[in-house]
């Protein structure tokens, strides 16, 4: 009996519903299909296409975090949400920082090489 009651108590803390999974599924299905179609039919080109599919991917990730992983729905204090935003910060520093440094390095080394070549 004790086991049964505490199971009930735990189940109350879990947030999924059929509705949330269906919304998540339909939205993800549509977003994936849109980005796939945009790329395969060349409906958009260049930077517009790149930014559009990145936007669609971010939207889909946020929707899945909300509807599948239930981020931000736990009781206060929201440790999971806090840890999540800390991770996003670390992620932005790692990815943004790496790309910034490496592209900058690439530009500098490449322009020096072109200069050195033109001196010859």
């Amino acid at each position: 009996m004790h086991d049964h009651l505490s199971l009930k108590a735990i189940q109350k803390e879990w947030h999924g519903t059929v509705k949330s999974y269906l919304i998540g599924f339909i939205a993800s299905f549509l977003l994936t299909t849109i980005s796939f179609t945009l790329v395969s039919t060349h409906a958009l080109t260049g930077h517009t296409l790149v930014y559009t599919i990145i936007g669609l991917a971010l939207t889909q990730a946020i929707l899945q975090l909300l509807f599948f992983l239930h981020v931000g729905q736990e009781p206060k204090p929201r440790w999971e949400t806090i840890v999540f935003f800390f991770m996003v910060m670390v992620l932005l520093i790692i990815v943004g920082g790496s790309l910034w440094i490496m592209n900058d390095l690439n530009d500098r080394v490449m322009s020096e090489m072109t200069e050195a070549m033109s001196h010859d």
Partner: protein
Amino acid sequence: MTDFTIHHTPDPQADTSLPDPNQDTFFTTVLGFWMYLMTDCVFFAAFFATYAVLHNNTFGGPSSRELFSLSTAFIETMILLCSSVTCGMAMLAALRGKKNQIIAWLAVTFLLGASFMALELHEFTHLVESGNSWTRSAFLSSFFALVGTHGLHVSIGLLWMFVVTMQVFYWGVTVDTFRRLVVFSLFWHFLDVVWIFIFTFVYLMGVI
């Protein structure tokens, strides 16, 4: 029992008919596993950054545009999305305490996950057999590192799913199996979120 109550300050007004050490275990386990998932995210971020830096360094070998099949990647994405939803359905069955439904939904999830891995391994063997393995160029090294790490996670997830399904089969829905199902479902949904970015940054942007 004393192990559970070390950090527990008893409330004098608490309802003693419901001593509930398992509930504490549930919260700490889920939070701890969530923290692991977040560090795993950072791990994947490092691979994504590596891939973004190296994806043009083909060393005279084939580029992503010549190698990747967009339709295969699209099918893989849809399979993984469906498996994420069927895993959620298993969780909803666990909420209602329906043992057979949990096992059925997890079986569907397992089959979808296994077919995802089959497609990915097929793609990998095709690349290796045509001489484009991870030793070919920095681009392919970073590609195999990123997508292979995700595939490794899915494979471990399949093994884990099998173990959890067996536990549900033998023990039914208890405090322990429910907690394990919750933790496993977090892992499985998380892998789908990571795949969205692999599909977009590796496959879609690779063929533009």
